[in-house]
C-alpha cells in the first residue's frame, strides 16, 4: 500500500497554506496525464486534528481514481497562523478554500468536499456562500445549524452548559493555552482524541489529568507522535481562535439568514459521538427539519458503536460511503 503523500505550500487568500495531496498514479505511457481531469475531493479536518486525519481516506480514494487534497486549515499545523485573533472567522477560512480550489484545481472548477467537526462547519458555510464550487458534500459529525438571529452562540452555550463548557472556557485569549501548557500537549491531544463520553466536554478549572490514557485500536503511537510534533510546533492558539470567532462569524453571517444548503449532501454520524447526543439533534435529523434546511440531503447514516472520530475509527467504511456517494455524480 502506497502511503506516500506529496506536500506543498500554496499562497491563498493572503496566507501560506500547507496541503497534502494524493493522486492516482498514472499507469501506461504517461502521454495522457489523467491526473488533471480526475474528480477532486477536498478534505476538511476538525479540532484538534490536521490533514493527517484523512490519511486512510486519501489512500483508499486515490486508488479508486480521485485526486485527494487535504489542507491544514488556517492556524493549524504547517499552514500560516495569522497573529490577529480576528482573522479566524468562517469568512476567512472559506476564503482560503476558494483560493485553494482556484489555485490547484481551476477557477471555474467544482470539487467534491468531505468535512468533519470544524471542517464540517466550514463545509456547510462553503456550500452556503459558494454552492457553485461544490459538486457534492459528504459531511460528518456536525449537522447544519441554520443561522438564528436570536441565538448568539457563546451566550447560548453558556446558558445550556455552564461556564465550564469547553467552548466557553476557550473564549479568554491565552487562558486555556496556559492551562494546556501545564497539562502538556500530548496529554491534551490524547484526552480529546480518545473522548468517548456522549455528554458535553466540560473543563472545570483545577481538574487534574493524571490517570493513564490507553490508546484505542485506531490510534497508533506513530499517529500520536505526528499530531504531538505538529501541535508542539504551531501551538493551540490558531485552532482555538476558531471558537473565539463563533460570535463574530454569527454577526457576519446575517446575509445568509434562511438560506438553504443547495448542494447534494450525504451525512454520517456515529451513535457514540457527543454531537449525536446534543439535545434535539436526533429529532432534528429524524423528523425532517435537517432536510428542510438541506433539501438535497440524500442520505443520513448513523453508525452503530462509532464515536466522534469516525473516519479514523472506521476508515474503510467511511471511504466506501464517500466513494459510493460521489460515484453517483
Amino acid at each position, binding site marked *: 500500500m502506497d502511503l506516500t503523500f506529496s506536500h506543498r505550500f500554496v499562497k491563498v487568500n493572503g496566507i501560506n497554506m500547507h496541503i497534502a495531496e494524493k493522486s492516482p498514479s498514472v499507469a501506461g505511457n504517461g502521454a495522457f496525464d489523467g491526473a488533471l481531469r480526475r474528480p477532486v475531493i477536498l478534505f476538511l479536518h476538525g479540532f484538534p486534528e490536521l490533514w493527517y486525519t484523512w490519511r486512510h481516506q486519501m489512500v483508499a480514494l486515490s486508488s479508486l481514481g480521485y485526486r485527494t487534497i487535504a489542507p491544514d486549515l488556517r492556524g493549524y499545523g504547517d499552514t500560516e497562523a495569522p497573529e490577529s485573533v480576528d482573522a479566524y472567522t468562517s469568512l*476567512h477560512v*472559506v476564503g482560503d478554500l476558494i483560493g485553494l480550489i482556484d489555485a490547484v484545481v481551476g*477557477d471555474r472548477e467544482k470539487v467534491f468536499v468531505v468535512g468533519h467537526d470544524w471542517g464540517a462547519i466550514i463545509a456547510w458555510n462553503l456550500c452556503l456562500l459558494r454552492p*457553485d464550487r461544490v459538486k457534492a458534500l459528504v459531511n460528518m459529525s456536525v449537522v447544519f445549524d441554520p443561522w438564528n*438571529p436570536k441565538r448568539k452562540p457563546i451566550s447560548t452555550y453558556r446558558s445550556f452548559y455552564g461556564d465550564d463548557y469547553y467552548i466557553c472556557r476557550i473564549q479568554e485569549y491565552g487562558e486555556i493555552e496556559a492551562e494546556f501548557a501545564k497539562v502538556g500537549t500530548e496529554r491534551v491531544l490524547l484526552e480529546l482524541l480518545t473522548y468517548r463520553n456522549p455528554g458535553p466536554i466540560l473543563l472545570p478549572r483545577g481538574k487534574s489529568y493524571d490517570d493513564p490514557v490507553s490508546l484505542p485500536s485506531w490510534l497508533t503511537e506513530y499517529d500520536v507522535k505526528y499530531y504531538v510534533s505538529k501541535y508542539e510546533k504551531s501551538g493551540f492558539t490558531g485552532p482555538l481562535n476558531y471558537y473565539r470567532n463563533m460570535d463574530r462569524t454569527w454577526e457576519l453571517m446575517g*446575509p*445568509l439568514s*434562511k438560506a438553504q444548503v443547495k448542494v447534494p449532501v450525504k451525512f454520517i454520524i456515529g451513535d457514540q459521538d457527543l454531537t449525536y447526543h446534543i439535545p434535539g439533534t436526533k429529532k432534528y435529523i429524524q423528523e425532517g427539519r435537517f432536510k428542510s434546511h438541506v433539501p438535497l440531503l440524500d442520505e443520513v447514516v448513523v453508525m452503530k458503536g462509532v464515536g466522534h472520530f469516525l473516519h479514523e475509527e472506521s476508515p474503510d467504511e467511511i471511504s466506501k460511503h464517500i466513494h459510493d456517494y460521489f460515484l453517483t455524480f
Partner: protein
Amino acid sequence: MEHRKVRGNGIDIHVAIQGPSDGPIVLLLHGFPTLWYSWRHQIPGLAALGYRAVAPDLRGYGDSDAPPEISSYTCFHIVGDLIAVITALTEEKVFVVGHDWGALIAWYLCLFRPDKVKALVNLSVPFSFRPTNPTVKPLDGLRKFYGEDFYMCRFQEVGEIEAEISEVGIERVVRRILTYRMPRPLILPKDKSFWGSKDETIPLPSWLREEDVAYYVRKFEEKGFTGGVNFYRNFDRNNEMLGPWVGCKIQVPTKFVIGDQDLVYYMPGVKEYIHGPNFKEDVPLLEEPVVMEGVAHFINQEKPQEILRLIVDFIFKF
C-alpha cells in the same frame, strides 16, 4: 406611505413602504449622505404601478439604529439588515435599486444572495470594490491614487470629519455635497476651503427644494454623520472577509445608469470599466450601460421621472 420599524440584523431598521401589500417588492437603497427620502419621487410612481416600494434608512442613518462600534458597519452587517427586512416582508425574490453606497451594497447583496434578487437597477457606482486578493488593502490604493485629501481618506480618522462637519455646519455640508457638480474626484483640503465661507450662500438647483434640504439636515442633526461615515471605515475589513467571492460573478439581470457629470464617472478607470469588456465579464447579465447627459451624482433626485421610467421599463420584463 407608511413608516415602520423592521428588525434587521440585531438592530431596528426604519422603512418607508408604499404600494399594494401583494405587489412585487422594489427595495430602494440610498447612499451617502442621503436617506430613504432620496427616493421620494420614485416611491409613489412605483406604488401606482402596482409595485410595493420599500425604502429603508440604512443602519447608521436617519430613523434606523446606529450601533456604536465601527466594526458593526461591514458590508455583511448592512446586507444582513436587508435580508432580514426582505424575509420579514416576503418569501419571494425582490427587485433592488441602489444608488451610491446603496449600489455598492446592492452588488454585495447580489453576490451573497442571488437567490433573493429578481433583477437589479444600479445607479452611479459600478462593481468597484469587488473582492480582490486581501493582501491588497483598498485604502492604501485610494491613498496612493487620490492622495490624503480624497474624501474617502479624510473620512478614516474617527471623529475628524465629524468635528469638521460640526464646525462648518450640517446645513452647509448637505447643501454643498448635494449641489456638487465638478466632473472630478471629491477632494476635501484640510483647510476646509471646500465648504466655502459662512456668508456665501449655496443656491439650490431646480430639482432640490428648501424643504428637501431641511429634511436631510434635520435627520443628520438628530443622528450625526458617524453612522454613514463608518461605512467608509470598513474597506480593508470588508476586503479581508470577501475572500469567498474573489472571482465570483454577479448572476442577476442588471441595468446600470450613470450621469456624465457624476464625479464617479471621472474616477480613474471607471469610464474604461463601464464601457469596456470587464463590467460585462463581472456581471454577465448586464444590459448596455446607460449614460445620462448633463446629469450629476444625485441622479434619482435630479432626473426623477427618467429614473422611474428606466426602473419600470427594466423590471417590467421580469
